[in-house]
Each structure stands twice: as C-alpha cells, then as structure tokens.
C-alpha cells in the first residue's frame, strides 16, 4: 500500500488529540456567553482539528470520512438554524428577540437564545472552514501533482493523497 499522509507517530498523536480539540471547540462555543470565545472561535478550533486530521492522514482518507458535499449540507444547516433562531425572536415581538427564559446570572443556562445561536455559528463556521480546507487540499494538490507529472518529474510521495 502506498504511504499516505505523515508518519504513524503523527497519525497516532492526531488520533489521540483531535477528539479533545473538537470537544474543546464545542466547549468554547457553548460557553461563549459566559467567557471569552463563542461560535466563531469554536468553529475555527473545530476546523483546526480537521486540519490536523487532514495533514496527518492526507486528503483522500479524510474525504472518505467527511466529504465536501457533507460540509456543504452541514454548513447550510448551521446557517438555517441561525435564521430559525432569529425568526423565533419574531414570534416574541421583534426580530432576534430572546424567547427563552434568561435564567440565573453566571450559570450555564443564562444566555437565552445566545447559546443556541453560538451553537449554530459553531456548526456553520466549522463546516464552512473544513469544506474550504478539503477543497484546498484535494484540488490544490491534485493540480500540482498533475503538473509535476506532465513535466515528467515524480512528485513528492507526501502529496499523493
């Protein structure tokens, strides 16, 4: 079998930490109303976990798990969720108005719709950035490899994703 991605040291470390990074991303997003962070920051961290997987295992194996089409759909679902939260506010009087109980200050359930909105943004930004990374990894290297071959040179095996 042709070698794809990086060495098994990197791959195993990635197996170990990628899940933690993803959980941390969700934590950052869900506590956005209490501490620094929020949906966008969480989404970027989530995409960082995906970038790690992409680098360690290569584009093809990552794509087998998570395709660009899936990223499209999840990204759209996040955006639609955000729109739904905004429209829910319309039911409470004004666009984007809070329609959930506010809860007790400094507790987790204290942000009203903000936590939900952060969750929607996490999904949207995470899926969007992962989609961008996948597109760059797959199409970018595919073109580079094809160009190298056309010149009669054998491309770097690392790029044979």
């Amino acid at each position, binding site marked *: 079998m042709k070698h794809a991605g990086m060495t098994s040291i990197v791959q195993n470390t990635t197996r170990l930490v990628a899940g933690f990074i993803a959980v941390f991303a969700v934590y950052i997003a869900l506590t956005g109303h209490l501490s620094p962070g929020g949906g966008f920051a969480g989404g970027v961290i989530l995409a960082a976990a995906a970038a790690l997987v992409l680098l360690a295992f290569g584009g093809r194996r990552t794509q087998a798990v998570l395709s660009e089409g899936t990223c499209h759909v999840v990204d*759209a679902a996040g955006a639609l969720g955000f729109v739904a939260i*905004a429209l829910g506010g319309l039911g409470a009087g004004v666009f984007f*108005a809070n329609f959930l109980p506010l809860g007790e200050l400094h507790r987790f359930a204290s942000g009203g719709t903000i936590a939900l909105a952060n969750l929607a943004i996490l999904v949207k930004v995470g899926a969007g950035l992962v989609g961008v990374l996948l597109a760059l990894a797959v199409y970018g290297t595919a073109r580079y490899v094809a160009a190298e071959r056309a010149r009669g040179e054998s491309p770097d095996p690392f790029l044979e994703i």
Partner: protein
Amino acid sequence: MSVSHLVPFLAVLPLGMAFLFVGLAHVRGGQRVVPGLAVLTVAANLVLATALIGVEVGPIFVGGWGAGKTLGIQLNCDGLAKFMAVTINLVALVSIVFALAYMRRFTKVWLFHALFLLMTGAMNGLVLAGDLFNMFVFLEIAAIASYALVGFGCEAEELEAAFKYLILGTVGSAFVLVGIGILYAMTGHLNMGMVAATLAKVGTTGPAVLLAAAALLGGLALKAAMVPFHAWLPDAHPSAPAPISAMLSGVLIKASGVYALARVVFNVLGPNAPLATVLMALGALSMVIGVFLAVGQWDFKRLLAYHSVSQMGYVVLALGAAADVLAVGGNRTVAGLCLFGGLFHLFNHAAFKSLLFLSSGALEQQVGTRWLKEMGGLARRMPVTSFCCRVGALSIAGVPPFNGFFSKLIIIVGLAMAGHPVLAALAALVALMTLVSFVKVQRYALEGEPAGDGAATAREAPLLMGVAMAVLAVICIGGGLAMVPLGAHLLDPAREVLLDGAQALKEVLP
C-alpha cells in the same frame, strides 16, 4: 402583525433561501426546484419592498435593544432605504428571470442562484442598516458574493478579473472599516444617528473626522468605481455572466457605492464644503474620463462597463452639488433639485444599464463574441433583442422622451442653478459623447451586414430572456412619463432624507 414586522425579511428571506439551496442541491431532485424558488423569493421581496412604499416604518430595533443603546442593531426603513430596496429588487427580479434561460449552458446553476440571493439579500440589508458596522458587514457579504459570481464561468480571464476585483474590493473595504473604526473611537457609537449627533457636538472639521471621512470616501468611491478608483470595474463587470453584469452595474455599485457614500456624507458626517468638493471632483472626473474611455472600446460589455463609470459620475456629481449647496445653508429647493436628478438618474441607470447588459448577453450568446466588429446585421436576425438594445442605448444617451433624458436634464438644470455652469455644460457634452458611442454600437452590432458566421446564423433569444428585456424596455420608455408618480412616492421621500442632512436620523435618539 403589521407590514413593518416584515422589514427584516427583505434581507433574511434571500439569505435563508441561499442557504437552503445549498442543502437542496445535495438532495435528489432538489436542484430542479432551485431556479423556481429563487425567482419566487426575489418576487416576494419586490412585493414586500413595493408594499412598504408610503407606509410609515419607524426604526426597528433588532433583538429588542431599544432606542439609544449603543450596542443594538437597528434597521432604518426610511424613504431612501425604501427607494433603494425597490430599485434593487426590481433589477434582481428581471435579472433572475433572464438567468433562467441564460444560465442553462452553465453547470452548478444552484450555486449561481445561492450566490445571487446572497448578494441580493446583502444589498437589501445594506440599505436598511441603521448602524455603520452592519452597513460594513452587508457591504462585505454583497462584495464577496459578487467576487464569486464574477469568476463563475471559471475561464482564465474571468478568474483573473475576479481576483483583481477581490484584491481591490478588499482594499476598499479595509479603508471603509478604518473610517468606521475612527468614528467609533471618537464618538463611542456605531449607530448612524448617534454618531451624527455626537459629531455635531464635537464638530466635523477636526483632523480625526477628516481622516475618517477620507478613508470612508476613498473606500466607498472604490466600491462606486469613481475615477481614479475605477480600474477593477472594466474587467469585473464584463467577465461575469450577463445577469450578474446587470446586477453589478445596475445595482451593486449603487447600493454599496453611491448609496453608502450618500448615507455617510449626508446623514452621518453632514454635508460640508470639503466633502462636497471631493464628491463633485470625483463625479466630474468619472463622468468625463469614463465616457472617453468608453468611446474607444470594441468589446461590447467593456464599453458598457466604462459607461457605468461615466453615468455614476453624473449621480455623484449631482449629490456633490447638493451637498455643496446645503453646506453653506443655501437654497433648499436647488439642493433638492440636484438630489432629485441624482436619485432619478440612479433609478434610470439601474433600468437602462441592466437592459443593455442583458441584451449584450443575449447577443453574445447567439453570436458567440462580444467584439462589436464581428457582429453586424443583428437587427434583422434578433428583432426583439435589438429593439430592447436600442431603447437602452437611446435612454443612456439621453434622447427624449426616454427616461435618461429627464434625469440628465434635471441634473444639468440643477447644476446650473447651484452655480456650476461649467459642470452643467460638461454634463451636456458627456451626454453627446455617450450618444456618439452608442451610435457606434448600433452601427456595428445591429446594422450593416453580418461580419462573421456567428452573426450570420444568430437567432432570436429565448422567450424568458426576451420578456426580461422587454420589461426593462417598458420602464425605460415609461420612466420619463412616470416621473411625477415615481417622484411623489419614491424619489421625494428619499430626497427628504438626504436633504435633512445630519438631522435625518436623530429621531432614533432617546
């Protein structure tokens, strides 16, 4: 629930539908319903924008933050916003109907429709935004969607134009953001009305305000493609698919350029002499240089793009003349006349430039080239398209009784009354040059003998494209006659907002 509750839908409905299309595209059979849904969305928006005319809608506080809060997002659905919303959605509807037939030879049509709605929704949000930062955000959404749409064909030339547009557009946006940042640092507010109120206290002639004004004017003038910031437009507008060219030239440079410029200069900074001078200089330069660059063009769409620079020059010149009159506390009627002419020309330009771009797209699709010298004899082979093209050409050249004649006449009279006879004469001369350039188009594209195989075998454009062009042609022919009702319902309320200057948005204050 009154109609004012529905105002946010102008921006949210297209944005939401755009996201929905991305999901639908990955569902079996979902792609087939996308074009129809897109047309319905834009049509619903046009109905909503039209229904808002004459309805008194106070500022809408998104999220229920209330008046006088620095942080809350606010939508201002005043006369100017309604006027722009009607213009944007009218052109969008015609363009998307045209696209139903035109985009058939492209792949990933769902992506086109998603980006189209993203751009339309962002422009609606831009004209509704009551605070500077949301204006910037929607400006960026519209701009980013348009970068992608310019390169939609993915040919090398189109990608190059899109990349150039991306770089220059981002530089412009960065300047806008710097300007907004300086104003925020100075006043502590982002809400346009509150920034205007604070600036009125601290004065608008300090170096910091002037720096902010310079950054905002530079950035927005780039969006409006004013000379000397116009270099991206002649590449970007012709490279896009024809319905997008119509949207970019017809409304995007107006919403993200001229509208934002007018809003910032009149309603936030308040008209003053230096700003008025800059606007008039930009306008006059664009008007003259744009038309001279257009006359020598042989690429039909590139010629039209240069005319956009020139015609936007008219609008900005009229705005500048009005600001000049208002700055010295001059006659409100004269300033009002200039503003009326400018806004009317903005509307008319949206109609005839979209019409010209759509007809150029129909010609290009049939003939297979945009090169005027390779066309010829198309008046016989494509009568409907040619008729619509002629109506557009006569309108842009300012031939009576088409709509362009009336708006140019009002601008010229307004300039003369505001004490700028030289600029008025220049505007008349540019109208003549425009006529010359479109006589060339008529001569080479529509008259004479076919100069190539493409022109000899061209057939009439499909029905939907013809219908879209015919609607705009009717607006061009009837626009001049409809000036009085249009003025009473759309232009006068919009003009009042600008005439009130920095006082216009004060009502939002607690």
